[in-house]
């Protein structure tokens, strides 16, 4: 057992699990909208092509560009086509961006690309992979972070610096990157088919910068993030944030097309202050195939990350339980859906806590049972 990881994960559990319980107790409506969300997500999965089409129409109506990518390579080509020669890029934490290996590809091409979520930035400078979908750097202790920042960013910071000073130093660095960025790339926590809106939830304020300051905003997400209406999209982000332990969330960003103004004779003029281009790339990458399979329920997952802390295998193996960024119980499902990787399912002990805490009531152990079978049978 890795002692450093054991300490880190137990601290995270202690900080997170009681907090989530308190949020759910004080706001009983959240469980109701979670149930509602499960129903609408199932409805979308039953009619996925129809909802993708509807999303496309809605995005175009807002003046945005819609792209459907069959796989990671196709998504990457679309990104390159949109970015062209632009070099300065800021990105916000997204598992789908890892799925298409966005940062690796951009770095290979010599682009100046920076993660702007603090945890993800730390993972980037540590040349590492995330250990949790929502909290990517929980495996890094404050000491380690101090050393990292000292080596990579600011000689005034070290392992004895306060967390406040560490954050301040990163903030200063990223502020320059935001102001210079030509392209902002984000994921999406939900996409409303009826309005073409992309919703993003956060606490740091980085996503707000990423989506507003650069002239181009590209949102890349899985087709599983589409929900029928803007109301459903709000429900999804509220449920996700609450089950991740953040309620109320500091920021909910809604993007429906590029920036615009109607201040001159109420005539719509685009762009205004924000981006002049908005692109939504929705990625299939195994998801449609999964809809028609025995692991379909994987796609109901909203990636709140709560299941990680109820899982003995994650507590033992950390990010080795799954294929990063898709780790933990939900990561076993997403690794199967998007990478067709099944081996780590064998490390599941069917403890079942994951099922108990899942807001979408996914019977995760039963899905993993099917993934184990795929591994054995393949």
């Amino acid at each position, binding site marked *: 057992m890795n002692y450093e990881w054991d300490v880190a994960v137990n601290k995270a*559990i202690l900080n997170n699990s009681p907090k989530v319980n308190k949020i759910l107790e004080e706001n009983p409506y959240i469980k109701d909208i979670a149930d509602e969300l499960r129903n609408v997500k199932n409805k979308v999965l039953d009619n996925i092509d129809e909802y993708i089409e509807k999303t496309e129409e809605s995005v175009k109506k807002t003046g945005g560009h819609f792209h459907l990518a069959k796989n990671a390579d196709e998504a990457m080509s679309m990104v390159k086509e949109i970015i062209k020669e632009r070099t300065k890029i800021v990105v916000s934490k997204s598992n789908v961006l890892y799925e298409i290996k966005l940062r690796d590809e951009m770095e290979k091409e010599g682009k100046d690309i920076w993660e702007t979520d603090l945890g993800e930035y730390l993972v980037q400078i540590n040349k590492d992979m995330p250990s949790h979908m929502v909290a990517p750097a929980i495996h890094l202790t404050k000491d380690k972070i101090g050393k990292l920042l000292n080596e990579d960013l600011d000689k005034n910071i070290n392992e004895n610096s306060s967390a406040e000073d560490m954050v301040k130093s990163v903030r200063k660095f990223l502020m320059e990157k935001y102001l210079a960025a030509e392209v902002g790339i984000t994921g999406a926590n939900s996409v409303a088919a009826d309005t073409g809106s992309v919703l993003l939830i956060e606490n740091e304020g980085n996503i707000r910068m990423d989506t507003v300051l650069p002239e181009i905003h590209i949102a890349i997400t899985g087709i599983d993030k589409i929900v029928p209406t803007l109301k459903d999209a709000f429900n999804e982000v509220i449920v996700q944030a609450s089950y991740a332990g953040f309620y109320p969330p500091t920021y909910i960003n809604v993007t429906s097309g590029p920036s615009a103004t109607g201040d001159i004779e109420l005539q719509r003029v685009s762009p205004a202050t924000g981006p002049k281009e908005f692109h939504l790339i929705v990625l299939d990458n195994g998801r449609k195939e999964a809809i028609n399979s025995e692991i379909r329920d994987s796609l109901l997952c909203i990636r709140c990350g709560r299941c990680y802390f*109820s899982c003995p295998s994650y507590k033992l193996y950390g990010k080795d339980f799954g294929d990063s960024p898709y780790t933990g119980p939900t990561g076993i499902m997403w690794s199967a859906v998007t990478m067709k990787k099944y081996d780590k399912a*064998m490390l599941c002990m*069917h403890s*079942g806590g994951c099922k*108990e805490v899942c807001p979408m009531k996914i019977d995760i152990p039963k899905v993993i049972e099917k993934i184990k079978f795929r591994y*054995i049978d393949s």
Partner: protein
Amino acid sequence: MEINKPMIKKMKDMIFQNLMESYLPFPLDTKLYSSWATDIPEGGETVFYTSYMYQISGILKRYESLFPKIYKLNIPRRLMTASKFLIKPNSDELERSFNILKSIKSMLLKNNLKFGYLYDKEPYSGALLLESGFLNEYKEYGKKLYNFFNENGIKRIITVDPHTTNALKRYKDFIDFDIDVINYLDLVNFKGTGNYVIHDSCLYSRSMDMYNSIRNKINGSGIKLNENYLITSKEMGSCCGGPLSLISNKDSEDISKSRAEKLLSVNENVLVMCPLCYQNLSPYINNIKDIAEVVS
């Protein structure tokens, strides 16, 4: 963590072949393991069913450690036959398991339940196949098992451990299996004393949703329970590490040790309901008891 797929596949083939030939996952001295019962009628519509889990729980790890050797040395399966005489629980382990089964039998009788027993003809449940993801083999063996129960006129099975209960209940998800399966904890009421922390069986408490019913019975029995949300709740309670032992014995033991430490931080007396949980946790806990050892 490296997963040895060829070894797992060989293990699957070996277990499956054994089951299809003898209703046992590996050679077992069924006469010995059924000798705890002498006065239960043989067979009948309702049977008391052990699947040998309590009796062999103490030697499972030894069987598990045999698999890598069999795989490495490519030992023919038939040579495993001798293992039933070589790998046996010690007399204390065997006596303890017999006493637990007798206690469960006694509780069922006091609750006016009538049942028979299959003695040394009792087949294994197939739990190992299901829990390892060997689903095709689980289905195939399930059909054979169903026919066996039908041919013997069995309509209701009273199970005594979580793995067997889960395996038999889950058959209906895969095949026609219209035999009533019920766990003894759903049938009996009991009395007890003492102060304990429960280590839940993951299968009982979460897979089969018995968390509350078990606690209600224990709380009503006179036993006092200590709880800690992060350690014993339905959401946060954790595994004993047992299911991992086929993949990595060391990792399985790490989980067992860590789980034991957490339980001991709640109470020094630990209550379990599964023979495998007992085996995995007992090296690290002085006072650990099966529920059937502390109630009557």
